[in-house]
């Protein structure tokens, strides 16, 4: 009986997690985009975009590890932008 309850609890927990992830998937996509734009703007010097004055960049650079990883992830997936967009809107 105890085992059954545990597995039911686990089942509901994953169901709850899944629902929550599904409910926030579009906002998460928006968050990813906002983080990408921030990373692109601050690290734009590497790709020839106008970038903030060097002083601003040097101040935030030590805390930019996450932004650099966002940029790396983003550039790795650049050849697959179309399928990413379709995935966002659940089109198979």
């Amino acid at each position, binding site marked *: 009986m105890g085992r059954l309850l545990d597995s039911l609890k686990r089942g509901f927990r994953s169901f709850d997690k899944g629902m929550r992830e599904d409910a*926030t998937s579009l*906002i998460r996509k928006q968050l990813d985009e*906002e983080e990408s734009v*921030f990373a692109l*703007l601050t690290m734009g010097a590497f790709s020839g975009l106008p970038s903030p004055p060097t*002083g*601003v960049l*040097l101040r935030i650079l030590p*805390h930019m590890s996450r932004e650099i*990883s966002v940029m790396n992830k983003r550039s790795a997936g650049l050849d697959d932008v179309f399928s990413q967009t379709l995935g966002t809107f659940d089109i198979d």
Partner: protein
Amino acid sequence: MKTYFFLGKGGVGKTTASAAWSVGLARSGMKTLVASIDPAHNLGDAFAADLGDRITHVADNLDAVEVNIDDMIRAYLDELSVKMKHTYSYMSAMNIDGYFDILKDSPGIEEYATMEAIKKFVALAQYDAVVFDTPPTGMTIRVLAMPRVSLLWTEQLVKMRKRILATRGMVENVQGRLEAQVDGETVVLSSDEKEDPIMQELVAYREELKTLKDMFSSDQSYVSIVTMAEDLALLETKRIIESLGKFRIRVHAIYLNKFFAMANPPDEIKGKMEEQERVVARMKAEIPGIAVKDIPLLRNSPRGIEALFTVYSKYLV
């Protein structure tokens, strides 16, 4: 604290004017520091003293320093490199030193380091006045404009960061704390402004820039132009005043250095003297509200405290 900047092209006499001005302030009882932020230093020559990176006492109430901008950039980047090696563990595997070699020559870094040097000296509470012997005009204007330009960018980045944190907060409300994998390590992504290091750094930098910007355009900051009484110099002076005006920095005085004054000039220099008179008349008419003073072409270049004080008392005040 009062700050004094002497601007002008190379070789017009900025160093003599700033050194003489600092001697005058010190003699009036103000505890004064004169700092050369020009990469081609000759402040030590004006004082006939050995100066360097360290603040040196040169007379009563007067200290002097020649800032080595290249060393400052190197020291700053070294410090940043150590900080980054701690934060970016994966970068130590890459050639991080190579990256910093490029960064030290990146556009704007010299202006940034010069601005940092100014910031460092104006923060020294023991002085009543700091006099800056500046690099040639173009770079000094960029340095003086930097706080305002950087502030615009910083404010925009703060706004963007706020939006990111707000969106994170929305996701957090439904899903709980957000986590991300950065190079194999789990990082908690906070939506709280006080816990986001980028936001904290941007906000702190914004405050520093605001202070510097307000200082440059305050009535405690005196900018003077050192030039010569020539037609081209007149046009350049007007452009400097206009450029600084855009950043709300007011010019207080124009010094016309190496001014020819002769009772019976030979024909060879008559034309030059007529040009001088013409330029002075135009300067006074076309640049109202700014004192125009001339410093005659001296027989010997003033060197040492007494000679500099003579320049100050006879021609600068």
